[in-house]
């Protein structure tokens, strides 16, 4: 597919040479009218394995599913937690009481009541990795028809954050009747929620078709981010699976798609040159270099420090995300656009520091004797591959014998879970709502981070009496990260998306939002 991309680029250049510049007519953004009805066709890069968000960590699954299913809480545009399916909620030590909204209908006509919330949330706590991580030993209980109580083993400051997050493994509410009598670990077959769109059809390898839910009971507050009023302004929402990125670009350019996700950075000029299209980007990914801390040289902390010293992080970011508009040199472990919630100064002064000579000394101190170091990567994601090339060069300069091992993505995904398969690997992780959900804190994730000190800090953050108190421990976590170096954070990268100007708006909060969007096409 890489070859195709280059050929596409070549073709684009040829066309530019013969003077066929983009000059399609129309596209007056002032003429955006709120028109109800019609359809919205969105090209996405992959097909979700299922829309059962409890059983699946992929972003694409939650992204599509959240049009059908809703959560108890949701984030607004400023990242603040707002009630969604609940009228109000009250946190009190290790319990949270939720008063449910009345008259909220599921797509099958049933009203959403406490029993549905209890069945859904207890399943989510037991089967999803984020449920198990944050809510160990917790259960939801029915108090009355419209009141549920979450009882946790200990006070959890991050509880509401995790409950409001719908970027992956979203804690969605389904009817109890769908879940009853089924093995909770088996995927559900019926997609019935309370959302503004309802499930119509899934054509495998082709598309998911959602339609407007006419009995949707919306909140009254004005829509902001994922919170407030939601209204399906189009009758039909088609999510089209288009794995080839150049096809997504050609499709949005020609108007075949109204919106497209995850566009390649090398198509930016082509997309910006077309006045019918609005190109946007959103910080989404954390670029991290992971060390194998179970086997090999990097079990030694000094060796990890040596790599950190040898690398110019901004060069790596530049290789990965090409255009400075689409990356941020960010020293702390959360995303730069989350700084109003999570920020630490620790390590800011050292972000740009790199010294090849010092790195050589540190490698010698760590007992490195010229053995081969395996840097594992995959060509399926350009940014990871390009970042790996630069890291390889920089480590070679520091006298390290680095061998690049390149695999296809499925092979890579399997090998990275094998401690004998690699020494270093570069991966992008999705941003998380709170730092203890970041995957490098897990001992079973790539790199295998085991540290009592880390467990102490994450416990402190989770068990803090309030979120504000929890934020107070973020400095401590950042300092531990920079000292222990479970991984090296290079910076933040953006996800590019585009919409035709016939759309009234297109916003991304942990994924694109399709309600409150009209299409005047």
């Amino acid at each position, binding site marked *: 597919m890489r070859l*195709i991309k280059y050929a596409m680029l070549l073709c684009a250049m040829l066309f530019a040479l013969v003077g066929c510049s983009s000059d399609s007519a129309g596209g007056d953004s002032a003429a955006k009218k709120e028109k109800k009805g019609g359809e919205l066709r969105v090209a996405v890069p992959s097909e979700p394995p299922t829309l059962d968000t409890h059983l699946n960590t992929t972003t694409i699954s939650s992204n599509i599913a959240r049009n059908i299913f809703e959560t108890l809480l949701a984030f607004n545009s400023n990242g603040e937690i707002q009630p969604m399916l609940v009228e109000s909620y009250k946190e009190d030590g290790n319990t949270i009481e939720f008063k449910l909204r009345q008259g909220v209908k599921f797509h099958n006509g049933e009203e959403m009541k406490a029993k549905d919330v209890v069945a859904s949330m207890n399943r989510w706590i037991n089967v999803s990795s984020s449920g198990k991580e944050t809510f160990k030993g917790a259960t939801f209980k029915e108090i009355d028809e419209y009141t549920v109580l979450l009882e946790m083993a200990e006070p959890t400051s991050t509880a509401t954050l995790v409950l409001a997050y719908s970027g992956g493994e979203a804690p969605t509410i389904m009817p109890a009747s769908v879940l009853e009598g089924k093995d909770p670990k088996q995927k559900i077959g019926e997609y019935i929620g309370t959302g503004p769109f309802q499930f119509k059809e899934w054509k495998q*390898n082709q598309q998911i078709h959602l339609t407007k839910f006419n009995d949707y009971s919306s909140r009254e507050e004005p829509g902001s981010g994922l919170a407030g009023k939601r209204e399906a302004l189009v009758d039909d929402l088609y999510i089209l699976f288009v794995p080839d990125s150049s*096809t997504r670009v050609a499709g949005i350019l020609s108007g075949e798609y109204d919106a497209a996700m995850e566009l390649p950075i090398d198509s930016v000029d082509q997309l910006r040159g077309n006045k019918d299209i609005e190109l946007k980007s959103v910080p989404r990914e954390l670029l991290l270099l992971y060390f194998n801390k179970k086997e090999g040289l990097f079990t030694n902390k000094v060796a990890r420090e040596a790599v950190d010293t040898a690398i110019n992080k901004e060069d790596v970011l530049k290789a990965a995300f090409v255009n400075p508009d689409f990356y941020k040199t960010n020293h702390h472990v959360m995303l730069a656009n989350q700084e109003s919630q999570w920020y630490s100064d620790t390590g800011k002064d050292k972000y740009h520091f790199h010294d090849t000579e010092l790195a050589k000394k540190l490698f010698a101190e760590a007992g490195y004797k010229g053995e081969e170091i395996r840097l594992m990567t995959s060509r399926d994601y350009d940014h990871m591959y390009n970042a790996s090339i630069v890291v390889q060069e920089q480590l070679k300069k520091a006298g390290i014998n680095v061998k690049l091992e390149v695999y296809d993505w499925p092979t890579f995904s399997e*090998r990275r879970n094998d401690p004998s398969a690699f020494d270093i690997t570069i991966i992008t992780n999705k941003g998380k709502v709170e730092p203890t959900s970041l995957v490098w804190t897990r001992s079973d994730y790539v790199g295998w981070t085991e540290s009592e000190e880390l467990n102490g800090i994450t416990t402190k953050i989770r068990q803090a009496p309030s979120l504000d108190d929890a934020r107070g421990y973020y400095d401590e976590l950042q300092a531990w990260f920079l000292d222990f170096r479970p991984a090296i954070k290079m910076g933040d990268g953006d996800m590019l998306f585009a919409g035709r100007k016939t759309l009234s708006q297109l916003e991304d909060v942990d994924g694109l939002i399709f309600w409150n969007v009209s299409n005047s096409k």
Partner: protein
Amino acid sequence: MWAYILKRLFSLLPVLFVVSIVIFSIIHMTPGDPTSYMLGEEATKEQIATARTQLGLDLPVYEQYWNWVTKAVVGNLGDSYHMNMSVNEAIMGHIGPTLSLAILAEIVALCIAIPLGIIAAIKRGTATDQTVMGFSLLGMAIPSFLLALFLVLLIGVKLQWLPVAGYRPLEEGLWNHVKYLIMPAISLGSIQAALIARMTRSSMLEVLNTNYIKMARAKGVVEKKVIYSHALRNAFLPILTVIGITFGGLVTGAVVTETIFNIPGIGSLIMNSVSKRDYTVIQGIVLFVTFVYVMLNLIIDILYGVIDPRVRLEEK
């Protein structure tokens, strides 16, 4: 004739058996795990282990093969790991777009190739012949994806005459169905055309030099009739073989073209299944493709007899 067809059908069995063992071994030796796609990148070890047990991937390989092959023998190719359907349903659900595309591409190929091949043969050695053959050489040399991308940029993005990608089933109207397939059919068909044109030319040349053509001309038969009913029919056997082979390639999925134009056919099913390591679907498709090839070859063999009475089986 019937005995011959039966014999050929029986000879299919060992072929399918060998193919099943080979494909099963290759897939299970390939690194990569179906569960990593199923659960997402951040799945825990425990989630992965549960999913592997659910899929039966924790059993010994020979046991997995036995479980699969005993069902496959009676035509049940198993269930897809990732799609909510059986492999049989998946193949049937994806064969429609591929068949439509293959037929359209073959029509494009024949409309270009046969007339050009005949013209080149008649005007042998002239500038026309050289131009035609030059183009056909170029056609064979251009990779289909490059032609596809040129078409997308020119006809889809610049001129916006045809949709750049996607597929609409026949139920949504003939034009709606066909307009999504024109560009992919041209990009596939013109490459096939190059091969068929060359074959037509050489085969026609051979026939045009035979005595019976000279005889026909001496008899005063109209030149058109000489070319079409005397020469072309006799020259058609090798052309038919090429058509059969190229059509086989088209029916079993044009992976790259289907990916570029996002057509949900067998080609993109193969592509998706390989990248998701959907073992049962890959195995099923390979068996299916083997079957289709053998059957196509059989049909071509029978067609020989229809076109050329000299190779009719009953008379032997």
